[in-house]
């Protein structure tokens, strides 16, 4: 980022004094205020800010919950009920945190889907994308360990199933599983280390997020056209344009979030987790939280222990290499008619796998899960490389500014041929502030 000394001159002598010694004010000014941002970003680009908001929310509610929680199998379950009943606003903090996990994953999946659709993973943003994949994997580990902490039936049995994934590794598998447990089953040692790691990992995520934003600010934002920024006519300063837009999106997002927290806080959870963990009885239907269901479906689709585990982890790790699997030089799916169809089928596939992951692992469900698993991987391994070669992209706009102007001219024309009401101010105003 900065590192080359202050570039901006500040009127305030105190700010100038600080900035000449630690150019943090210049850095904030360069990266968060005047930072040039493509002027055509749509609302799918606000999920980055929403995710930052979610990370902060989860850390703040998490730290306050940790003030009342105890990672001991004898009291953990009761301690959570104490938070719900005795602690001032404990119910609110816990519901914000529990629903927050779902909202966080909803936002991150939107963010990833946007990246896939508009080709944000392609050069020069490969490292930015890979850091994002690492954040996703860290988020999943954190969410899984957090779900163990209330020590309900789903906590204990979820932990048992997921840790047993590692037992599929040939030769060392059982030793690794015992090492993860700190014993011969999911017990106190497991709970204690999961709590320690659940507290640690969000800060690791925050660290990787800083790298993610750093990488973003080197390459700059991608945009709906996928065409690189060519001149200052293509951009607007981050503040106030994007700060206000992101802020507005966060407010809308918070309304949805608050609806869950205040009206259906347990809708996304599982009632079995309000029964204390019993190591002698497994619940009839053991399912992970909704955001992990697609991966769970892929695990169960493979009729082999090691194979299932490999497929499940591969479904995440494959994301790391898609910058090199996609052979098309056009970034945005807007100009890739075939890729666009393939992408939307892939989205349907993910939703279908999510549904199948919640269904019993038998009969038609398994067969469907296999078909969708095939498409999930086929999209990355076959369609991405092949489509880039056989597809004829639509003509790209010369620049972001050209694209925006073409759109507003069209709107201008529509207004005049339409009812005639309203002045086409937008058309004239849009390119004014360059």
């Amino acid at each position, binding site marked *: 980022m900065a590192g080359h000394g202050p570039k901006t001159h500040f009127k305030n002598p105190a700010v100038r004094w600080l900035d000449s010694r630690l150019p943090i004010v210049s850095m904030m000014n360069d990266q968060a205020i005047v930072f040039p941002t493509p002027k055509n970003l749509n609302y799918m680009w606000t999920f980055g800010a929403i995710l930052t908001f979610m990370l902060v929310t989860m850390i703040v509610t998490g730290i306050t919950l940790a003030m*009342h929680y105890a990672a001991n199998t004898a009291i953990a379950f009761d301690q959570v009920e104490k938070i719900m*009943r005795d602690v001032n606003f404990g119910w609110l903090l816990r519901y914000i945190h529990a629903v927050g996990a779902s909202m966080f994953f909803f936002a991150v999946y939107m963010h990833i889907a946007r990246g896939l659709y508009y080709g944000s993973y392609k050069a020069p943003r490969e490292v930015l994308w890979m850091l994002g994949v690492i954040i996703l994997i860290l988020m999943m580990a954190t969410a899984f360990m957090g779900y163990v902490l209330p020590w309900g039936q789903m906590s204990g049995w979820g932990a048992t199933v997921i840790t047993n994934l590692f037992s599929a590794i040939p030769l060392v598998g059982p030793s690794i599983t015992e090492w993860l447990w700190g014993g011969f089953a999911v017990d106190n040692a497991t709970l204690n280390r999961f709590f320690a790691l659940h507290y640690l990992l969000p800060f690791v995520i925050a660290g990787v997020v800083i790298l993610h934003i750093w990488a973003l600010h080197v390459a700059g934002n991608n945009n709906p056209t996928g065409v690189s920024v060519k001149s200052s006519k293509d951009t607007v300063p981050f503040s106030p344009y994007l700060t206000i837009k992101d802020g507005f999106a966060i407010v809308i997002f918070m309304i949805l979030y608050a609806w869950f927290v205040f009206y259906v806080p347990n809708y996304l959870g599982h009632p079995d987790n309000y029964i204390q963990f019993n190591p002698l009885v497994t619940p009839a239907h053991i399912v992970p939280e909704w955001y992990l269901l697609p991966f769970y479906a892929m695990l169960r689709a493979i009729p082999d222990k090691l194979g299932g585990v490999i497929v499940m982890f591969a479904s995440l790790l494959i994301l790391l290499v898609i910058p090199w699997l996609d052979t098309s030089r056009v970034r945005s799916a807007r100009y890739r008619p075939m890729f666009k169809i393939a992408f939307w089928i892939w989205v349907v596939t993910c939703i279908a796998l999510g549904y199948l992951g919640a269904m019993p692992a038998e009969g038609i469900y398994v067969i469907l899960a296999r078909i969708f698993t095939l498409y999930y991987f086929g999209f990355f391994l076959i369609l991405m490389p092949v489509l880039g070669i056989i597809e004829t992209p639509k003509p790209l706009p010369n620049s972001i500014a050209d694209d925006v102007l073409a759109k507003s001219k069209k709107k201008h024309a529509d207004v005049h041929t339409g009812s005639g009401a309203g002045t086409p101010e937008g058309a004239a105003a849009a390119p004014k502030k360059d």
Partner: protein
Amino acid sequence: MATTETNDGHGEAHGETRRDFLYIATGAVAAVGIGSIAWPFIDQMNPDAASLALASTSVDISALGEGESMTVMWRGKPVFIRKRTPTEVEEAKEVPLSELRDTDARNPNIGTGEATDANRAVQGREDLLVMIGVCTHLGCIPLGQAGDFDGWFCPCHGSHYDTAGRIRRGPAPENLAIPPYSFPDESTLVVG
């Protein structure tokens, strides 16, 4: 906003005025929102319902003999209950108010009052003294029947309390506090 109505007849003010209003209104809503969401995060650290439920302690004091003390827990703190000897009571009564460092009785059971021995002891039972056993300096527990005034002595920083638990020498600013209490019957003391 008064200017708005007089501007152009369309409810439109000059750009700056209207925008300024919107900025301030938005900022005000944001400030209220942040304040109201901050409160739960602050209040969660206050004593919870379970802690408040421990706010009263019942003690059987029938076995307490003259010159004997007992200590009970109330809200996580020690409460000294002492049946004083007549000598101790006399000693406390003889001290003129002018010699006291803190002339407030610090006894919520009588409201406000001067720190006379009668105001410090249980009403109608001048031999009985009930006090929170926490030094008013920095919270250590004073030793009983010690110090230069035959009452309590705090070993941490050398505060001396007399036989009525009143601060007489040392850094502590106040007399030992007296908790709210009641006697449902002769032999039962309820603290809190």
